[in-house]
């Protein structure tokens, strides 16, 4: 009985205020889509970190006879130098950090190079002698690469020590910046959405001020009076959130899993639909909670005793 009455009041409020309700739906839809996109970007960043940091190694490149950078003096690293480096890697100072390491000879480097740059004219130019020998070191904890870089950089025969993660960091920084921009935009629009919901509810309350006055006079409880209005705001915002959810799922399905996967292949660990379905309930809860809070605040001035 009472539930029916409350729902009926909410429905009539929605009908009476249809243009405002539509604008609430649209603003919530757009702002929550941005929020969802920002969350997805963060997921993507984490995914890429997980994918790449697992594979990332520290490369200790050795001197070749055409190289004068590092400690090299256009002389190929000698066997003694290589043994000294290997001794360092197995020494008690460095060994605890290292999961495993392997030596890559000129020939192996050339084979890998041919695979990586297949179809490129570079392959024809390169010879095994151009490509440095190297130690590929896999660390227990990829974040501790500096230890290795510091202890190996100055050793004779070492051309350079490079943490492969640094190549990834640039891309991740860009993605991170994009996600912060999306969050910033989203929060501005969320503020607009909250204010719009508050205005809508206030308008709705104003158009029903006679009923509210009589309800207060005859002793309807505050909760009974405010619930239809809060439901009105929450309902409009939930529609917007669900639309945003649909947009997020579509974005992942058609852009990430469709276009991106076709263009670049799954070499960087792309997010999938399961991530999108994780974001949707977040958006719905966020939308609903924000709407309930702002509608509650907006209606409270009509309930002051």
């Amino acid at each position: 009985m009472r539930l029916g009455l409350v729902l009926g009041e909410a429905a009539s409020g929605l009908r009476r205020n249809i243009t405002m309700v539509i604008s609430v739906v649209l603003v919530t839809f757009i702002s929550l889509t941005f929020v969802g996109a920002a969350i997805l970007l963060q997921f993507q960043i984490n995914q890429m970190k997980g994918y790449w940091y697992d594979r990332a190694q520290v490369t200790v490149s050795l001197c070749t006879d055409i190289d004068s950078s590092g400690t090299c003096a256009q002389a190929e690293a000698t066997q003694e130098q290589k043994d000294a480096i290997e001794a360092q890697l197995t020494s008690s100072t460095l060994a605890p950090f290292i999961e495993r390491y392997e030596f890559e000879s000129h020939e192996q480097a050339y084979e890998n190079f041919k695979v990586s740059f297949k179809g490129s004219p570079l392959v024809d130019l390169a010879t095994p002698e151009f490509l440095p020998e190297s130690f590929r070191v896999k660390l227990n904890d990829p974040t501790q690469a500096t230890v290795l870089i510091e202890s190996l950089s100055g050793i004779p025969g070492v051309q350079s020590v490079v943490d492969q993660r640094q190549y990834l960091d640039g891309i991740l920084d860009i993605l991170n910046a994009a996600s912060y921009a999306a969050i910033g935009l989203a929060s501005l629009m969320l503020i607009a959405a909250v204010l719009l919901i508050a205005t809508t509810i206030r308008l709705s309350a104003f158009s029903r001020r006679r009923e509210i006055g009589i309800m207060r006079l005859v002793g309807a409880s505050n909760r009974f009076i405010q619930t239809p209005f809060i439901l009105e705001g929450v309902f409009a915002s939930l529609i917007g959130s669900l639309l945003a959810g649909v947009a997020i799922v579509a974005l992942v399905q058609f852009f990430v899993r469709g276009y991106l996967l076709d263009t670049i292949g799954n070499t960087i660990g792309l997010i999938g639909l399961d991530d999108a379905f994780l974001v949707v309930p977040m958006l719905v809860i966020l939308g609903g909670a924000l709407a309930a809070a702002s509608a509650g605040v907006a209606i409270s001035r009509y309930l002051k005793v």
Partner: protein
Amino acid sequence: MIRFDTVTKSYPRNSRPALNGVSMEILKGEFVFLVGASGSGKSSFLRLVLKEEKPTKGQIHVLGQQLGTLTSRKVPYFRRNLGVVFQDFRLLPQKTVFDNVAFTLQVIGKSRGFIQEAVPDVLKMVGLAGKSNRFPHELSGGEQQRVAIARAIVNKPAILLADEPTGNLDPATSAGIMTLLERINLGGTTVIMATHDVGIVDQMKRRVIELTDGRIVRDERKGGYQTQAVPVQGFGLSGADSGTEGVSA
């Protein structure tokens, strides 16, 4: 039933208080006229009884509750014991007579069965038995006020507050409304009516409380709209206090 202890009510941006040290008591089953010029504090008095306003100073007891200690959460439940009628009726224009009265019961959570029983009863009592499906704009002013009274008493309140209920009605219709209020009073409901209607007050010979500039200047049993003979009638201890204050003012 209703007791004011030296109640003062000031509104912001107005140095002169709407009520100034008012003390009085109204007992169960009384019929009280509240008279005085516009701005003398009648409406403030009624709003204070309803706890629509808080007194600036002093205490108000209504139905055994001290209103100052009533939390805002409990105010709605307190108001269910009061009925209110206004000069401008305040009916919902898009609801029928039946729905206007039923709305009161719906919003305080009464069952459908109770509403189906109570609303026709009360409409019959106020003399609108055949008109439950009419809309307010199809009724005369007197009939609209009867709907408002039906709405106010359908929940069987202990107190009925009426703020110039005959202010918009012609004398004949007013007389009908007064007969109705009298009948409600005979049923045990305390009735407090603010009015400017000299004829009604003179004819009814009920207790009259006159306010001037926020003070009680007269509290008389079986009084008329204006009396010079008995300026103030002491009523209980607090009433006597207010009386002397009123005279000295």
